[in-house]
């Protein structure tokens, strides 16, 4: 820094009025590396190819590859006018939102909710919730670290790093089985010092799509009790893994039953398709209400210097959706397994029969209305997984694609190497992150066959067309 000042002084002329700027204060600022996930979208957008595919960011798309606005969101927003907002109104709505969010994750009838034994604040979606917790952890446990699964969402590393909390990883993904490395995971949990902080994905692990079973979660919870570890859950996909909000909270409920006082970050970006509005929640379970109030005050203070108060628009929409029974019912249906979009019905034998039966019983008009009213996100994603796997097998791919259907949620860890990912982008205009993570939401009935052939090409043949694998994996 001193060298820089001296250099600057040499370069400065004495005239202060008409001096042209010779040097910038910002010369030592290097270009930041691109965010790996956003970089995929940027490359995709820059590509003029008409049949390009974006499998980068985890934002849900319908079967036409279009972003979705949920019916429940439209209804909610229709009820929200440009109302006069007093600061007190915002606070009241925020509290309501926090309460409803907590019910979602801990269960409506849980003691924690009834007794008000949690400190909850609204946050800027999942990222904001995680960052608030990381800052809180740093402030009150300045010597602690965070243990993260390997791999995890790349931004988790950025968040705890910028909050200046050292990071350790624990084994999670088994590249050979493309499943969970449970033995190594438990070993790492056991070997961590007592009272360590752990980051866990309660469902639809990002980026692998690999989740522990209920039994495995129970074992993890028991070991956590013995080690007195702090479990912090990042719940970004509740409803998206199985289509069932309650089912997807299973891991958290298991920990709750075991008496853990957990922390939880929630995001409504995916399951309400409210990405741009940045709505989320951070909650910490406490001994009692008094402690909850104290912790909440500290969280609010941390937030006050990052962004002040959370943005109201998304808050209003979510609050309305969760607290208005009619609108909530619509939401539950949209997330759940229900009727698929009408165009898909045409493509499947099973559903052709289904159509005929339906038309006989309900009438074509009703069928059209029902099928276009409800979009089911989780089901579409599940169907695309199955379709992609079948297509790859039909092409005669020698590799094992079972993991595509074993894995859960929006993402699929394909096992593709960085070179293969590169080839997919350059030769086939298919874009994904270098770790081989595919966002299944970007797969549609229209592009699934092309995608399968592209993947087959880069995995079965090298760039010169020579066969890579002679034996089935």
């Amino acid at each position, binding site marked *: *820094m001193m060298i820089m*000042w001296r250099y600057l*002084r040499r370069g400065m002329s004495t005239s*202060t009025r008409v001096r042209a*700027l010779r040097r*910038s*204060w*910002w010369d030592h*600022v290097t*270009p*930041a590396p691109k*965010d790996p996930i956003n970089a995929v979208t940027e490359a995709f957008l820059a590509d003029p190819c008409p049949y390009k595919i974006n499998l980068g*960011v985890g*934002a849900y798309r319908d079967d036409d590859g279009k*972003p979705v*606005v949920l019916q429940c969101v439209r209804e909610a927003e*229709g009820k929200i006018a*440009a*109302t*006069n*907002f*007093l*600061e007190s109104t*915002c606070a009241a709505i925020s509290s309501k939102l926090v309460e409803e969010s907590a019910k979602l994750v801990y269960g409506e009838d849980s003691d924690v909710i009834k007794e008000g034994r949690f400190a909850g604040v609204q946050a*800027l*979606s*999942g*990222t*904001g919730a995680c*960052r608030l917790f990381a*800052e809180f952890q740093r402030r009150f446990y*300045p010597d602690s670290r965070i243990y993260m699964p390997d791999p995890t969402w790349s*931004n988790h590393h950025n968040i705890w790093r*910028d909050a200046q909390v050292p990071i350790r990883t624990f084994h999670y993904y088994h590249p050979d089985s493309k499943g969970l490395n449970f033995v190594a995971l438990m070993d790492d949990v056991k070997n961590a010092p007592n009272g360590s902080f752990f980051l866990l994905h309660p469902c639809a692990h990002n980026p692998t799509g690999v989740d522990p079973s209920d039994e495995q979660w129970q074992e993890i919870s028991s070991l956590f*009790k*013995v080690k*007195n570890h702090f479990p912090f859950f990042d719940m970004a996909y509740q409803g998206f893994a199985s289509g069932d909000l309650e089912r997807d909270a299973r891991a958290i409920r298991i920990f709750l039953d075991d*008496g853990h*006082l957990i922390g939880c970050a929630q995001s409504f*970006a995916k399951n309400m398709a409210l*990405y*741009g*509005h*940045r709505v989320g929640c951070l909650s910490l*379970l*406490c*001994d009692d209400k008094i*402690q909850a*109030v*104290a*912790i909440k*005050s*500290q969280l*609010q203070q941390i937030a006050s*210097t*990052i*962004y*002040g108060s959370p*943005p109201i628009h*998304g808050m209003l929409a979510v609050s309305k959706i969760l607290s208005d029974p009619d609108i909530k019912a619509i939401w539950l249906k949209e997330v759940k397994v229900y009727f698929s979009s009408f165009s898909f019905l045409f493509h499947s034998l099973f559903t052709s029969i289904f159509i005929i039966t339906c038309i006989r019983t309900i009438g074509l008009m009703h069928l059209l209305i029902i099928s276009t009213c409800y979009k089911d996100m989780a089901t579409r994603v599940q169907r695309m997984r199955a379709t992609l796997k079948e297509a790859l097998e039909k092409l005669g791919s020698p590799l094992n694609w079972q993991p595509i259907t074993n894995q859960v949620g929006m993402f699929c860890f394909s096992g593709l190497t960085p070179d293969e990912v590169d080839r997919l982008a350059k030769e086939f205009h298919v874009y994904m992150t270098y770790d081989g993570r595919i966002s299944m939401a970007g797969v549609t009935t229209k592009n699934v066959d092309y995608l399968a052939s592209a993947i087959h090409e880069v995995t079965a043949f090298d760039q010169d067309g020579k066969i890579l694998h002679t034996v089935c994996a």
Partner: protein
Amino acid sequence: MASSLLSLASASPSASLSSHGISKGKLNLGNASLCFNKEKTNPFIKTKSFGRISMVITSNVSRFEGITMAPPDPILGVSEAFKADNHELKLNLGVGAYRTEELQPYVLNVVKKADKLLLERGENREYLPIEGLAAFNKVTAELLFGADNPVIKQQRVATVQGLSGTGSLRLAAALIERYFPGAKVLISSPTWGNHKNIFNDARVPWSEYRYYDPKTVGLDFEGMIADIKAASEGSFILLHGCAHNPTGIDPTPEQWGIIADVIQEKNHIPFFDIAYQGFASGSLDTDAASVRMFVARGMEVIAAQSYSKNLGLYAERIGAINVVCSSPDAASRVKSQLKRIARPMYSNPPVHGARIVANVVGDPALFKEWNVEMEMMAGRIKNVRQKLFDGLSSKDKSGKDWSFVLKQIGMFSFTGLNKAQCDNMTNKWHVYMTKDGRISLAGLSLAKCEYLADAIIDSYHNVG
């Protein structure tokens, strides 16, 4: 294993905390200006024993046992106290949110129109890019610097959408911490309370320059210049672009020129916080004059903007951070690093407020309408100032000069009342204000000016 669990149960919370090293005093907030050393305890945690035994068989002892209640926000605390008061003549002059003559919150017509447009278009809620809505970033920079400004044409401004003024300041603070480690930010004495908190939490050291002169209830210009000159080279000087908060005292154009001279001489970086563009004089261009003057001299400037007040978008959290650089290359690098700071804070900013601003500022008809509403709001404040001044001058026979009420600008006025006098305002007259003597004129109606004048005169003359 079970025995160690039970021993944890019977230990007091302070003992369990000490096993994590807290009460051993091993802490490092990493904050130069707070300067905690190993002997002092963490102010956020109290280590008193509760003497309570928790059952750990079914539930863990919370590891956050010792956490104390955070101090209440002094400004919001005023509104809470006001709400609790049942007196019919009560007056809330605390927080700086614009109110109509009927003392109701005000949603601008242009905002209602823009909101309706957005609802009709039914746009998706996809993630914005990390730097925010491109349309918003374009119009916000143009609004501040002027659409024809060479710095914009030459692409020398790095603009990133931020979460209102607070969020934008925080981004800049993080940039300073990362790229100018050890450099200080100089803030005015007094300044908006949250400035210090933001720099503290961002681990950027700060100190104050003289600003308010209680003797004149005006600007201590000599003190300000002296303190800026005395600061070590390459400091960041935080300036309020217009309508200084909390004093309402702005430098004159000539004084701004001298401030710019000194900053250039000392190789400091000017860092503007513009939260009231349009609200000070009623003219968006006039209120941007100070920033534009510095930029016109070829200086590299940081500028944080907020649309909370001038578009009434408090709750939407919409603002921007702008860094004017000497080259488009520097601007692009700086922008990339601002994005890198934003990503682990909140990934990308909220979309709604950005769309409203982009629509209002970007549409000529709506923009014109906004200018009119802006003048109306600033006009109401000017009228209220006049009426208050008239009331004070006519009712007060002591000959005290109350003209500072007219000279000060924007939403706030520093009355010069001390703490005891402020307490009298509240306790006797049910007038709620912050203890530094600041009143928010946005919360004053013409109808209540006389009452307020009485309260101020009484407090000033009859209380210590």
